[in-house]
């Protein structure tokens, strides 16, 4: 039985535009192994889906938007040969350059309706009746340069008066929460910080949560489909927290599920932060903050 593997020289598999991916294909076999060719295909694709909500279920099934190819590269590493028993490696190099019309390589991102992925796929073709060996691995692209995060704190006050879309103003219990986000333009690699003080609350609180949302917009001939979904939910307060005590807001952005805010003609990836306060009686109050994510 023979195995094939792609070994990259960078253990974290993070690359930037303009760099060269180096590594080797390693074939291990207990017996000698004949092959017709060893080839490698690298490609980067932004896959877009339309949400069932915005365009009806049927349409979303087959009327999906064509994926956008961002990057492609293929090489043949060897032709017709034989590998003696043991391990054989085929080193390779792939320069990371965007396709002609694409201005730059987007960051790797995995969302619900949009995903940007870069894959390296290798193929060892073998003579008739033998199964070909394939292996696929993903590399992560990050921006080399881009917008910088700033340090402009945003202060907020949440109280019954600040709530806009309540069912009926009268039923809202009295409470007052104030706080501050250290910035609304945040660097992905740094945690989101700030603080929050429950000054008063008539009803006991069950929990205070930070909800990181992605807002994906996919353009289609019929218009734009915009969807907001949750990426992660982090509790910063549990139980009836002490009044007047400043509770830190702290959240680390998840890798891959968040990327610098993207705005292209065909699709947009944006992010929002919700501060959610849940009361013992299941009532919930949520305050929304649009945020911009940057790599730096």
């Amino acid at each position, binding site marked *: 039985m023979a195995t094939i593997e792609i070994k990259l020289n960078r253990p974290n598999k993070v690359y930037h535009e303009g760099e060269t991916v180096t590594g080797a294909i390693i074939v291990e076999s207990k017996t000698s192994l004949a092959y017709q060719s060893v080839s490698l295909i690298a490609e980067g694709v932004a896959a877009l889906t339309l949400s069932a909500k915005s365009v009806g279920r049927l349409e979303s099934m087959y009327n999906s938007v064509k994926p956008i190819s961002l990057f492609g590269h293929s090489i043949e590493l060897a032709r017709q040969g034989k590998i003696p028993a043991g391990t054989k490696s085929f080193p390779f190099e792939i320069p990371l350059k965007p396709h002609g019309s694409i201005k730059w390589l987007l960051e790797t991102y995995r969302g619900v309706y949009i995903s940007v992925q870069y894959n390296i796929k290798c193929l060892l073709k073998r003579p008739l009746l033998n199964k070909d060996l394939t292996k696929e691995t993903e590399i992560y692209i990050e921006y080399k340069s881009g917008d910088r995060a700033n340090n402009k704190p945003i202060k907020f006050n949440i109280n019954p008066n600040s709530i806009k879309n309540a069912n009926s103003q009268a039923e809202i219990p009295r409470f007052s929460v104030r706080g501050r986000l250290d910035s609304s333009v945040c660097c992905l690699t740094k945690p989101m910080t700030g603080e929050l003080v429950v000054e008063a609350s008539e009803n006991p609180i069950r929990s205070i949560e930070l909800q990181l949302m992605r807002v994906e917009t996919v353009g289609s001939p019929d218009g734009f489909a915009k969807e907001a979904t949750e990426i992660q939910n982090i509790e910063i307060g549990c139980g009836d927290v002490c009044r007047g005590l400043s509770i830190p807001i702290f959240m*680390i952005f998840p890798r891959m599920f968040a990327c610098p805010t993207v705005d292209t003609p065909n699709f947009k990836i944006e992010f929002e932060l919700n501060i959610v306060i849940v009361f013992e009686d299941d009532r919930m109050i949520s305050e929304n903050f649009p945020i911009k994510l940057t790599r730096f």
Partner: protein
Amino acid sequence: VQHYAWKPKKVNYSLDEKERKAKLTKLRSNEYHPLKPITVTESSLVKISSGEGHASNSENRSTKSHSSSGKDFIDPLSMLSIEDPLTSATKVTKPSKAVSVKNDDEIKVDLASSDASWMDWKLEVIPRHTTDQGLANSMISMLKSGKKDKPGRNTQVSSVSDKLRDRLGQLDEFSESSVQEMLNLSQQDFIDRINSLNLTLTDAWNTNQKVKSLKLTIQCAKLLVDASVMQFYPSKFILVTDLLNTFGSLVFDRIFSMCKGMDPNNIIPEEVPESAKEICLNWILKIASIRELLPRIYVEASIVKCNEFLKKDQCKSNLIRLNAMTRGIGNPLVALYARTYLSYIGMKHLPSCKGHFKSCFYDFVATYKQMYTTPIQNLLAHQKINMESYLSFYTPALQWILFCVSHNAHDATLTEVLEKCNTCGNNLVLFDSCISSFSSEYVAARALVLCAAVSKSDDKLYPKFRVLKSLGKKLIETEPPSGDKLTILNETWKMLVKIRNPIDYINCAVVWVEYAAKYFTHKETNTVLADIIKHMTPDRVYEKFSAELQTVVVCVLTHMPDFRSIFTMDKFLSFFDMFQKDGQRVTVCKIVAEYFIKNQDETNQNASDATTISGLMYICRTIHDSINALSIEDDITSASSLICGVLLKINFGKDFEQQLSFYVECRASFSGLDPVCATLVHSVNQLSGEVTKIVKGKHTRKTSAFVRACAAYSFITIPSLLDSATKFGLYLESGQIALISQCVSQSDAMYKAGLSTIMDLVNLPAKPSLENPFLSHVSNFLSSLLTVPDNTEQGVLFLLRSFLNIISESGSQIRPDITCAIYIKVLSLLTAYSQDQYLYHVYKVDSNEDLYSNDPKFLAEISQISTTLLNEVLGYLGSDNKDPKLQSLNAFYLFQVIIAHGEISDEKMQRLAVVVWGLSQQHAQANTKATIQMLASLKKK
């Protein structure tokens, strides 16, 4: 068998002195037989007379023997009582324990292993916080709350399909199923369950199921969210944190194993390989995405050290951040324990960084007011927990945090913390924790201020006595400034007096009695004891607290070295009235007696004043009275050894009459215990000897009356004893002492009485390899007979003859070989009798040689007796039907006696010697080595 006559050899002891000395030096060790029972006085006499050879200077000798009997008077019984093997064993083990404890302390100080103090802390907490209430409750409520949460979260519908989501979903499922399993668990089941989870965790890790082990850890950390069974929370915390620690070290070790050759205490992030950093970052990101706050804090804390792989000092900043995050925990108890874990982690990994400990505490102080809010009060009312016990769930955690704060801290820090405590209301629990955690030096220096603060405090919720108890404990460790001591005691006692609940009162009083006893005189301690009695007496509450009251007694004994002052306190003995059950009172009395003996041993003093003695007598009497016919052997032994020990320590110095009357009183009180009576006789004999020594042998009327009284005392006391060997030994000893004290007739009486008991000794069990006990008693008796002058009314050598009569009349009671050996011994004695000057004398007492001054009649009498005996012996040696070995041994012995004491120049004696030699060799059983030695010494002559 031929008829032989005994011819004694005449010896001039003084002339022979030098010669004898040269020869005897070798033999001395043989002559002084250390194992001869109850004959220490006697053997020392022999030793001195033969070894030092003061035969001619009898005056000198007798005083010497006095002094030796006075000073080195070690009688085996009292020795036994002093060095009871059990007590000595405990004595040995106690210090070693103390040493080990000390070592622990040192380890505690040594910060490298903060784990040791953590262990200590854990051991303290676990047994205190248990519950028999089922934990099922808690689990159910946890499940419910978990479900309730969901609608809240799911408002925004998300069709999540990514991997992480999957995992988190699994995690939820997983935890819920396990939690369901945990339904209806008792406390023990819970502990077992956690332990098995701990194993599963390690297993999963080792089989490369890293995600599973993380899930397990998170699930366990989630258990800490639920604090509904508060009694168990501290223990639960410890169980769970143990698991977290395992997890933390697993993660750390794995990443660390990838950085080769690095010091775990000094990780250089620049040198950490990329792959290791990647793994580390993965772990951290994974944990950072845990949705719930509390598990996130705990799990992050458990791997906080891994941050060091990424960036220098990252660990510290993370700890500070985690600390801040604990503010988001609503339940103050849960939050406090989370802080405790953070301080532990800080102590373990970053002992040098102090700041976060303080912020831990300050954060708690900030949330402190929360405890008095309605929701929590409602909860308590619902669970039927009062505020006091609720607060007691906080104290262990608070103490740990404050221990971390105060560890190697400046006084300024501590003062700052204390002031902070002062600023909030109902602060007694804070004070208590501060006092018990801060260094005793610090507390002692500010004891008065603290005391005042406590007394001012109007905290109705936390009992004052706990604070006072902690304060007392610290003050016992370190002495407060001398000026404040009394004020502190007064202030404290004012508060103590107000405590109504006897349990609380006595718990606290135990500590403060120790304080009083340690730093004050008997006066203050007495007052304190009086107050305790006053508090404990109503409704006979003392019955429930005998253990505590016993501790009080021990405290007083430990800290008051002077027994005089202990017994001066009139409340000390009235204290004993509170031990109503007999067993208890005796136990306490025994403790007192033990302390007394130990104490007197250490200080080398003897008690003599009346109060002490009457107190001790009370104690001893109580011990004595506890012994009855049904008591077991061990109890009797320990009781008598304690009483003997105490009695030997009581000494009136020069007031001999009082001493004697004391002994009389003792005899009356302790008649039930034989060893005590024996000790009393020994003591009285010693007393008499001492008096004789002081008057240098010249008794006045008064002293001679006294020594006679002593003799009478012994004479009366001895018959009450049961053990015949002791009895005989005491008769002999008393006889010797009476003779030394020049009470000839008393001594006669003693010997006579001794003779009347001698037959009881025949069947003493013989120990292998030792001389027959009967024989050794007899030889002891015979050698002391030499000094005893004949009673003119009773005829020549009355005592010896009555002894011989007893022996010969005993018939088959005595083995024939023993009879033979006795006769041979008597032969030696008779030889000694026939000398012009005896080997030893008693000062101021004329022995037979002076009485008869070689009267031919006397000599003829001796010669007649000896001849008779010799023929008896020869008759025995000649007969056939005896054990040949014993026969030849005796023959050899006789031969030795003939050579040593017989007049060898006489022809008949020579012939006799030859015959006896033949007898000794005929069975070829004699000890060859001894024979050769014998022949060699003969040749020398």
